């Protein structure tokens, strides 16, 4: 039973940063600016939040600094990619490479292998919900998580409403679907693209803070371990719809949690659980696209 509880708890635990990245990425996806810098932005949030806590000892300042630096990366991305009309995939890769490089550089300069905070206790950040924590199955799901985890699940509802029920969301989608007609309607397309990227960077910063400060109060380089790319895959499978994409993100959480918890029993083979979501996603992508293009009889080729 304890194993089962652990699996449930870890599912939420491992899903959170991916869900945050997904929420951040969907707006950029819908605005037709593919933001593959999610990974780098998340690492930037993780690194700056820990570094600033280490230097100042104040968590609010650290969170603020992490948000600001990550927004700065968002700005770099937007200026080069939207205003400068550069190739966004290449810019994203560049950010993904440069953030760990800077983190490494600073760590080497400070002569540290990694930063681990002694005076911040992780268990104090967890919020236990009084009544629910004792219910068997629901307990580990809803109770005992750090604040950003709760924020994330509220965020799913918030971003769904923002995308489908507000003017902002509609405009972002119009810009992505047909930029020319958006311009003809007098929509400032660049503004909406910038905004979409910025939402992404804020969410990624939170994901990074969740990953490093809240959960382990330590930073090691490359601790994001490809979560940003997983989020991109989830966004593609869910075609940018918030709830569907989040479900794919949770799929990864489940797989990760299974592989962590079962590794005691299965040995190295437990690592194969990590492969399952990738394979499921490729299959889903293939089937969805096949259904979509099955009835197209015209010979032709289109790049999306």
């Amino acid at each position: 039973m304890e194993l089962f509880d652990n699996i449930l708890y870890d599912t939420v635990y491992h899903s959170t940063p991916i869900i945050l990245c997904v929420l951040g990425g969907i707006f950029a996806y819908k605005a037709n600016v593919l933001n593959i810098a999610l990974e780098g932005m998340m690492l930037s949030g993780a690194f700056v939040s820990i570094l600033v806590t280490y230097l100042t000892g104040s968590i609010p300042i650290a969170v603020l600094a992490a948000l600001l630096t990550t927004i700065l990366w968002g700005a770099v991305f937007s200026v080069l990619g939207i205003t400068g009309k550069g190739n966004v995939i290449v810019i994203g890769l560049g950010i993904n490479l440069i953030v760990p490089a800077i983190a490494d550089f600073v760590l080497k300069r400070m002569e540290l292998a990694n930063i681990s905070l002694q005076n911040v206790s992780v268990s104090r950040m967890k919020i236990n919900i009084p009544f629910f924590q004792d219910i068997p199955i629901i307990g580990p799901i809803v109770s005992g998580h750090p604040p950003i985890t709760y924020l994330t699940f509220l965020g799913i509802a918030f971003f769904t409403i923002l995308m489908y029920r507000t003017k902002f969301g509609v405009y972002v989608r119009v810009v992505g679907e047909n930029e020319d007609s958006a311009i003809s309607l007098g929509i400032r397309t660049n503004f909406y693209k910038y905004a979409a990227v910025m939402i992404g960077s804020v969410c990624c910063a939170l994901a990074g803070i969740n990953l490093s400060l809240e959960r382990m109060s330590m930073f090691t380089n490359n601790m994001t371990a490809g979560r940003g790319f997983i989020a991109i895959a989830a966004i593609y499978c869910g075609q940018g719809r918030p709830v569907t994409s989040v479900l794919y993100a949770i799929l990864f959480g489940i797989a990760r949690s299974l592989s962590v918890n079962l590794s005691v029993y299965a040995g190295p083979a437990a690592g194969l659980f990590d492969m399952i979501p990738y394979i499921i996603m490729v299959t889903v992508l293939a089937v969805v696209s096949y259904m979509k293009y099955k009835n197209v009889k015209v010979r032709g080729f289109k790049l999306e």
Partner: protein
Amino acid sequence: MKQNKKLITAVINSVLPVILAFILGGLIILAIGENPFETYGILIQKSLFTVKGFMNTLHYAAPLFLTGLAIAVTFKANVYNMGVEGQMLLGGFFAGIAGAYLPAMNSVLMKFICFAAAMIFGMVFALIPAVLKAKCNVNEMVVTLMLNYAVLKLLEYLTTGVFRDTSAGYVATPTIRDGAMFRRFGSSRLTMFFVITILILIVMYLIMNKSKLGYEITAIGKNPEFAEAVGMRVSKKIITLMLISGALSGLAGAGWMMSDQFKYTLGFSTNPGLGWDGMLIALLGGHSPIGVLIAAIFYAALKTGSDSINMYTSVPKEIVSIIQGLIILFLAVRFINNNTQLFDRFKKVKKEEA
């Protein structure tokens, strides 16, 4: 004349980002209180202007050139094969397995089998996104990105579980046989593998510049719908391209295995990975084989030089990774394109003066 101008634009578009990145990197070095000229001097001198250093640089350039080429081939046709890293790992792993478990035999034949195994596995990986792209119109970038991680996990499992060399103190596959290893030239790390990459360069140059396929690649890259309309089978061409790309990546992995690593470890492809480095090299080289070779040598020089920086100055060698990242960022933006016509404007002014 027009050809000339194109070349100049291409060179400027590649060189300008590098210069900008070095200037910014220099500012960072200044900020931590070191002399940037001295640091850059050591970086270049140790990797390009000593015989041993230069030969080591060429050694590191060989696999990078192949991964760069693998990406350049697909990028030129506007197909994004982000799976080069995974294909390279697969190739390297299976070349290593073949090299370790095959019975001892003629060393040329042995190397040939290792390379063949690597190419086949690289191509199998590339075939999945290619077929999905051609038949179901699935975004190849997402598929290759995901398969990268799937491959990484699979190889991790195979290395720690099935093929683990229990006599080694850490997680690794058995060392390959002597017959599969490339001999080093003298005291440097350079091996015959570099010569093989030069042969591949010649073949790829002919394919990309002189063959029908090369022309079609360019056409598809410029406008796939038009290419289809004039009768090119774009989907078939994409599969061919991905297969070439996969084979090249596999070769890169096999070469790296047989000339440097000799066994598969979890850190086989150094951080951030030969495949990802290949992406920068392809961009820097402007997608042409010769450009990619120059870019690979430049990049490898940064790599070998960065170790000297660590040894002779107090600047952390990670400064080189920062510069590399900056180069990518600046490369994404084309400062001068064919429409800007910067040179034409100069010429007009000159004419008017005359």
